[in-house]
């Protein structure tokens, strides 16, 4: 084997005083060889992105390198943030980020941003143009000429990521660092981007350091794997070793989370609690001179049985969240009816609607935005019951019980949301939603913002609470794994329409619609699923 492209040995980087640990990364050593894909796996806060920053010479000033060396093609790299790094970046090493759209200057056409990279590295205007055109073709953009003339906001997430990849590989660097490049993308787009990176890598012999938290993605692309936890490497080895016979319990836990299967279950009753018929929702956008309409939901019908979980699966823009807003009666829709517990609630208003709100509750995606930062956890959970007429003391006592139910200590009552992690906050949101003893819980991407192992815990919590309290659940998600792990029944949506519906087994094991099959094929980690 030829010499490694980048070798990290004994790298330690300290955190500023008052951090939750003294080191961001401690004694990290690994090497990336030419042409290989090394996956650096870990959850948020594991220090994986800090390692990438250190290689790129972009450590923020408050993080100091205290020990270790990073060598690149046999030579020691310049000091952090040294101007000499400018010549290496893009030319020898390139980096792409999670949010491709945000990593492009919003005011400059993307084609010009690409040629800028070539120009600042000494290419002439015409040579830069030639290189850009070549690369736009190589990343397989439809109509590359038009896209080069576009501004970042005019591109989809997938197109923006292709542009950013084109920029990163423009000067044929030896190393590409990809920091969660597909995390924000839909599954089908994610699969395309992963294939694209793999193909370009093969053509050019680029070494790829791929940073991710998703073992599904890892199992699809990795040659070798490094697992990090709390700033330290807990395991490293070939993909086959780490995936096939993980040594460290943390790796095992991450793998288990990624291959989570729903427990076999036979619960719930057949009598419907919530059903919708022919829901159609059209948004009117724009001002008086450029009115546009968007068909968000078209003729969607569904039935949720008591105590069961219905997953609504779809990519972004499929209308699944709009459907949730209709079911919650938060969005006036143009056609269709909703029946709850035998009553038509399509046009319920006033105090009847407020009484209904008590019985249908919601948990949202972003546990950081969903809690009022100035309200204590106790006040947040007790607010609903108090509004619906419960005395303060009783409501607080109920809040304490609920905290125990979501496995948070009773002291949490008097704390504020900022003192909790994302997973803990989502537990608080769940406790708040359950405070009114709802019969239906609508969870809109409720685990999407969480790390995989936390995701698994929250899914278990949902299942456990449902078992005990018997509510029915509509679980909106873009993640097929999540749907499979939690749902009894599934609806697949695309462009506002229902493409397929049925039991979890039917939809996942014998999908009838082509779109469902495409989604399932695009989902990362299929090899892993098979093995588990």
């Amino acid at each position, binding site marked *: 084997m030829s010499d490694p492209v980048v070798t990290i040995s004994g790298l330690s980087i300290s955190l500023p005083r008052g951090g939750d640990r003294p080191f961001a990364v401690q004694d990290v050593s690994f090497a990336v060889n030419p042409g290989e894909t090394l996956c650096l796996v870990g959850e948020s806060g594991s220090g994986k992105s800090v390692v990438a920053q250190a290689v*790129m010479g*972009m450590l923020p000033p408050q993080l100091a390198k205290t020990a270790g060396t990073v060598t690149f093609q046999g030579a020691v790299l310049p000091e952090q943030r040294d*101007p000499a*790094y*400018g*010549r*290496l*970046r*893009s*030319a020898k090493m*390139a*980096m792409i*980020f999670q*949010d491709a759209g*945000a*990593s*492009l*200057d*919003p*005011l*400059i056409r993307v084609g010009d941003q690409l040629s*800028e*990279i070539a120009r*600042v*590295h000494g290419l002439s205007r015409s040579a830069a143009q030639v290189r850009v055109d070549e690369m736009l073709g190589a990343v397989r953009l439809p109509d590359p000429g038009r896209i080069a003339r576009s*501004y970042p*906001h*005019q591109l989809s997430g997938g197109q923006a990521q292709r542009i*950013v990849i084109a*920029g*990163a590989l423009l000067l044929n660097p030896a190393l590409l660092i990809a920091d969660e490049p597909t995390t924000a993308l839909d599954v089908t787009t994610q699969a395309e981007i992963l294939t694209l990176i793999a193909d370009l890598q093969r053509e050019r012999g680029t070494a790829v350091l791929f940073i991710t938290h998703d073992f599904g993605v890892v199992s699809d692309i990795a040659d070798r794997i490094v697992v990090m936890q709390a700033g330290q490497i807990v395991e490293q080895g070939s993909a086959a070793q780490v995936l096939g016979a993980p040594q460290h319990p943390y790796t095992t836990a991450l793998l288990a989370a990624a291959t989570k299967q729903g427990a076999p279950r036979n619960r719930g009753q057949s009598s419907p609690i919530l059903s919708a018929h022919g829901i159609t929702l059209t948004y009117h956008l*724009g*001002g*008086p*001179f*450029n009115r546009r309409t968007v068909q968000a939901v078209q003729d969607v019908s569904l039935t949720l049985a008591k105590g069961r979980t219905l997953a609504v699966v779809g990519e972004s823009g499929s209308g699944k969240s709009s459907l949730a807003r209709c079911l919650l009666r938060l969005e006036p829709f143009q056609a269709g009816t909703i029946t709850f517990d035998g009553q038509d609630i399509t046009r319920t208003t006033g105090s009847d609607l407020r009484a209904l709100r008590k019985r249908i509750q919601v948990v949202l995606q972003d546990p950081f935005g969903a809690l009022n930062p100035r309200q204590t956890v106790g006040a947040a959970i007790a607010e609903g019951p108090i509004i619906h007429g419960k005395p303060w003391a009783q409501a607080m006592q109920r809040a304490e019980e609920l905290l125990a139910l979501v496995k948070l200590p009773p002291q949490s009552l008097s704390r504020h949301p900022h003192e909790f992690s994302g997973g803990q906050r989502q537990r608080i949101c769940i406790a708040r939603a359950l405070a009114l003893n709802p019969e239906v819980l609508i969870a809109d991407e409720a685990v999407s913002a969480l790390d995989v192992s936390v995701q698994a815990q929250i899914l278990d919590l949902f299942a456990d609470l449902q078992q005990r309290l018997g509510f029915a659940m509509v679980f909106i998600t873009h993640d097929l794994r999540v749907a499979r792990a939690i749902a009894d029944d599934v609806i697949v949506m695309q462009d506002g329409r229902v493409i397929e519906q049925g039991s979890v087994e039917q939809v996942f094991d014998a999908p009838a619609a082509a779109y469902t099959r495409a989604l399932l094929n695009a989902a990362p980690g299929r090899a892993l699923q098979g093995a588990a």
Partner: protein
Amino acid sequence: MTGYILIRLIRAFITMLITVTLVFLFIRFSGDPAAALAPPDAPQEVIEQYRRAMGLDQPLWTQYTGYLAQLLRGEFGYSVHTGLPSAQLFLNRLPATLLLGGTALAIALLAGLPLGAIAALNRGKPVDRAVMGFSVFAFAMPNFLFGLVIILTGALVFQTYFGASADSFTDVIAPALTLGLASMGAFARFTRSSLLETLNAPFMVAAEARGIPRTRRLLRHAVPNAAIPLVTLIGLSLGGLIAGSVVTEQVFAWPGVGQLLVRSVATRDIATVQFIVLAIAVTMVCANLIVDFLYLVIDPRIRAR
């Protein structure tokens, strides 16, 4: 984009119509103009004569439509005191005010933008704190106080009068400093926060990762993005060119529009007050329109609408 432009033009028109109507109503309801014009001991018939002459005996609606028609014909009436057209009075004073406002704005921009940028680039360091302390001081201090301090300093230390006849260019410096200092503070703070936000944006990190040199990152990527919110602030200041200097003009006895406005209000010179208020409103509305159209040029996200 056509929609964007049309909506803004319509909005500007409506703003103007509301201003014109309010001016019309305020002047008629804030006291009897005829009584104010007539000599203090004038008998009732004389006041009635005045009233008829000014058309104040007509029903309000007739007065209003007549007034609108006059405005459309470009007839803004005559100053009752000097007998000159009010437009003429205003235009005589305008150059002095523009000189003062323009110089002040130039001072504010030339000092405020760089100071804000320096503070942003040295975030948290003593330079940052010093600049920000100075800006808060600058816009917290009332205009007239700083003006008086300058005049006093001139008189006591330099044995001269810093202020005003608008005869020579050096005369403008003291009042312009007074006027410019406050907006300089605002510009500096605004520039700092806007630039800081941009410097921390993901695309700036990405640009660094692409190997784009620091100077180019700042000038090509950070500055245009940070300038977008500043355009609004500069536009508002442009709109305030005429109206902003009323106090300063009084302090320095500067023969500008502000002084004329104060005097005309005191003497109930309706036509002149009307014209000045309309002129102020027109500059505000125009400045806002210019800002809106500038956005079209700068920001592709708005062009897309």
